[in-house]
């Protein structure tokens, strides 16, 4: 009986929402087919537990009480996030290896690989301060 490898959670953020401009319909069809096959295979292997494409329109909320609500477009930007995969893999190397299989890479898509954190960095800093000053109870409540 084999022991299960401990898993780590990673997110793949697919950046670039119009990298398919200028490619032939046959190339685009191949990328689409390859991408679906890639997603299905990862899910079957238990390495990908979710993923979605995102609509290019959306809103950017900022400022006090979120008083500034700006429209996209997010579609123009090479940085815009077009979708994501949620991975459960052995470690960063495996997450990167999976990212390298993305069929959009050949056409200019960029894949951002990010570890999912146990605790947000800001909260960690708050907890750290609380531990130093002995006010831990309220920080972790």
């Amino acid at each position, binding site marked *: 009986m084999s022991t299960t490898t401990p898993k780590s*959670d990673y*997110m793949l*953020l697919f*950046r670039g*929402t119009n*990298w398919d401009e200028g490619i032939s*319909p046959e190339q*685009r069809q191949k*990328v*689409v087919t390859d*991408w679906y096959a890639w997603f299905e295979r990862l899910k079957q292997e238990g390495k990908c537990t*979710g993923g*979605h*494409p*995102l*609509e*290019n329109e*959306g*809103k*950017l*909320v*900022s*400022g*006090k009480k*979120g*008083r500034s*609500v700006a429209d996209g477009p*997010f579609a123009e930007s090479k940085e815009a*996030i*077009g*979708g*994501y995969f949620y991975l459960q893999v052995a470690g*960063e190397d495996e997450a*990167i290896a999976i*990212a*390298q*299989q*993305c069929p959009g*890479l*050949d056409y200019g898509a*960029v*894949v*951002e*690989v*990010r*570890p*999912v*954190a146990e*605790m*947000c*960095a*800001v*909260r960690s*800093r*708050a907890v750290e*301060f609380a531990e130093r*000053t002995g*006010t831990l109870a*309220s*920080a972790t409540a």
Partner: protein
Amino acid sequence: MSAPTPKSEYMLFFRGPHWDRGLSAEELQQVMAQVMAWFEGLKHQGKVKAGQPLGAEGKHVSGKKGRTIADGPFAESKEAVGGYLLVEAENLDEAVAIAKSNPTLEYGVTIEVRPVLEECPIFDRARKRLLSDAMA
């Protein structure tokens, strides 16, 4: 009993993970308590499908066969994604209202609100092009 309103999913990306710079430690603790309360409130209302912070480390993979691997840090940039929340809401207005109620906006965080799609627009373009080619 009326039928439930169909809900949609929205992705919230929180950008600017160093918004706590310049805050006193007491202020930070207060804000964190507000953030936790905000999050718990949303979970209680059944609006949260998923949500996590993202580590500051990470990589950018690009180029043919992903041969270029660039390091972070991503956390320095105001644009860097510090975490995400997948919420269920009636429509974009409600998703935006959820974003607006987040306490970290006061400190410079920006929140990107994106509707989750069934199908990727690029796939959609491929399908439409195939169809129009077939009919030509």
